[in-house]
């Protein structure tokens, strides 16, 4: 069985500060990590591999520095890693990213299960998994919270819905996005690190993907960031000095 797990490089800390004078973003250094949800996707793939055998390939799209997250994913058990990197991809929104990744799936010859984290902690959009499934015309199972059963032909999972849970069985190929509750991560050991550190990482660029270049990067992205600003704050707070005073305010508000 072939499984592909898509992982994303995200900032290590979601703490972002604004310089109070220049109003520019003070980004916390260059530390990055694998998007935490994606590690659960890797873990799910390893659990499937433990039962069905085969190969788990991790794929990330990003700058050359993103090999670090591929190695981190390999420490968690992936067999192979592919970096999808090209300056032309810079500025891709979720649509363009989905398009590029779907072409990567085609380039790699497809997989039985394509795994994604439910969403990335830096954008919280949850769009790329379903986006790739759409481009490939694969079925999608979003928000898996439990892997129930898997064999050579199908996978059965429990997914979260707005009203509870749903148990879904799907044949292959399929796209599955994974919640944090889906499994327990295992911490890697020094031997795991050594294996990942010495692993060879393939790099794929735009020219090998037969892309329509008008659909990638900033110019190929349907959405455009028009403005970025600090959230507006209001100033007219009334400061109270005692709990009794506060009780009066609440009483008046609740009239």
């Amino acid at each position, binding site marked *: 069985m072939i499984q592909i797990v898509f992982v994303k490089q995200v900032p290590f*800390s979601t*703490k972002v500060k604004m310089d109070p004078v220049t109003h520019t973003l003070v980004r916390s*250094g260059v*530390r990055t990590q694998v998007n935490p949800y994606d590690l659960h996707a890797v873990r799910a793939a390893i659990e499937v591999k433990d039962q069905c055998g085969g190969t788990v390939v991790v794929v990330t799209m990003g700058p050359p520095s993103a090999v670090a997250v591929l190695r981190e994913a390999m420490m968690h058990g992936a067999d192979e890693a592919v970096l999808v990197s090209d300056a032309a991809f810079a500025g891709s929104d979720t649509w363009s990213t989905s398009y590029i990744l779907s072409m990567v799936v085609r380039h790699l010859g497809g997989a039985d299960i394509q795994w994604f984290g439910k969403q990335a902690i830096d954008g919280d959009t949850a769009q790329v998994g379903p986006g790739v499934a759409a481009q490939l015309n694969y079925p999608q199972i979003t928000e898996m919270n439990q892997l129930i059963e898997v064999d050579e032909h199908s996978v059965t999972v429990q997914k979260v819905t707005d009203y509870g849970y749903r148990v879904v069985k799907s044949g292959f190929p399929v796209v599955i996005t994974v919640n944090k509750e889906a499994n327990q991560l295992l911490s890697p050991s*020094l*031997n795991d*690190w*050594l294996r990942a*550190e010495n692993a060879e990482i393939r790099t794929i660029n735009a020219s090998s993907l037969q892309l329509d270049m008008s659909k990638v990067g900033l110019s190929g992205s349907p959405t455009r960031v028009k403005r970025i600003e600090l959230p507006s704050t209001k100033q007219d707070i009334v400061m109270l000095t005692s709990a009794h005073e506060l009780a009066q305010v609440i009483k008046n508000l609740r009239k």
Partner: protein
Amino acid sequence: MLIKSADIIIIGGGLLGCATAYQLSKRTSCSIVLYERNDIASQATSRAACLLTRARTKPALMSLVQETYDCIAELSQLLNDSLGYTESGSITAVSELQSHVALDDLYVAATVFGLQASWIDGHQVKSKLPWMETSSVTKALYMPTDAYIDSAMLCNGYLTGAKQNGVGVTTRVGVTNILSHANQVTGVELSTGEIVHAPIVINATGAWINRMIYPQFAALATVPVRSHFWISESIPTIFPINQPFAILPDARAFTRPDVGGLIIGIREPECVAYDPSQWPDDIDDVDFSPDNGWSTLSQSVNLFEKYFPSIHDLRIAHYVAGPSCYTPDSMFIVGPLEPTAGLYVAGGCCGGGVAMSGGIGRMMSEIVLGETCFVDQSLFSPSRFVDVHPYSATLRKQCADARSNKKGG
């Protein structure tokens, strides 16, 4: 604008700043204010291994540690909070013959000081530390009254005690400048632009200590050196929660239980020192290790293997790194900063900041208040180093070597 003033200003809300605030507040009714530009205990303090190792070869250091234990007892009662204090005991185990001498010296110093200490054999070590391969252990010292603590809780404990005694605390406001006139401190300027007048200012800013005073006032022979440990996954059957912490000088290592896991600290043969002039204001922004400590562990694990052969397969849940501020002679810097009257420093913790915090706070208070110091303060005098270039490669090398050559945890 309202002009603020105080009798004493403490800069820095880490362990040394908060311990000093507490000790000062017990001894004087002066008005004391403390400024921390981040959150209390958010920087180096929260990244310490927190061993309260009592035995030291220098009696002055044992007195400083004892003072910390006294403070912990006092604060626990006052605040009705354990502060994460755990009296686990400690085992110092050696394998090399040349390490026996140092361990003998430590035993003598400890017992003379009145500490409980006993020699134990390999079987006894194994019974207390089930994960350890003890066949190479040739000598081991057990000290039942050693403990470890939660450093952030201790730091907050000092500060709560200080606040109860009237110390004013402001967080998220930094000191941008120390002000002086005619060789006398006059106050500080805050990041808010406000000026606070005070005749006494204590610089307890840890890794940033030179940034506060150099080049206007003086230079201190201390730089931040990387200090780190790894925390294993939780396996309570192998890593009992109540096991003693262990010091393994021949592996340049220590271990400590941590809720079913094992904290493993291993010093590299060549420690990494940093140029603090290049540091960000918040330690979260320092990248101590691009690969999360793995290559460092791989390079420094060889001596530790003989005590824990399966370390290569042990799952590592966390890597924690932070700055230890070392000095070339591995002693702290506590005292007045000549020639500026009213300016004091407490820093250069050399990896002993948690264990010594109460003692350093007391020493600093006694010096500031002109009282007789309970330990020999000359050991820690800021003026013992001459011709200091705080941001030089030479000093970084000296301080990194001081940590690399350190014995014990």
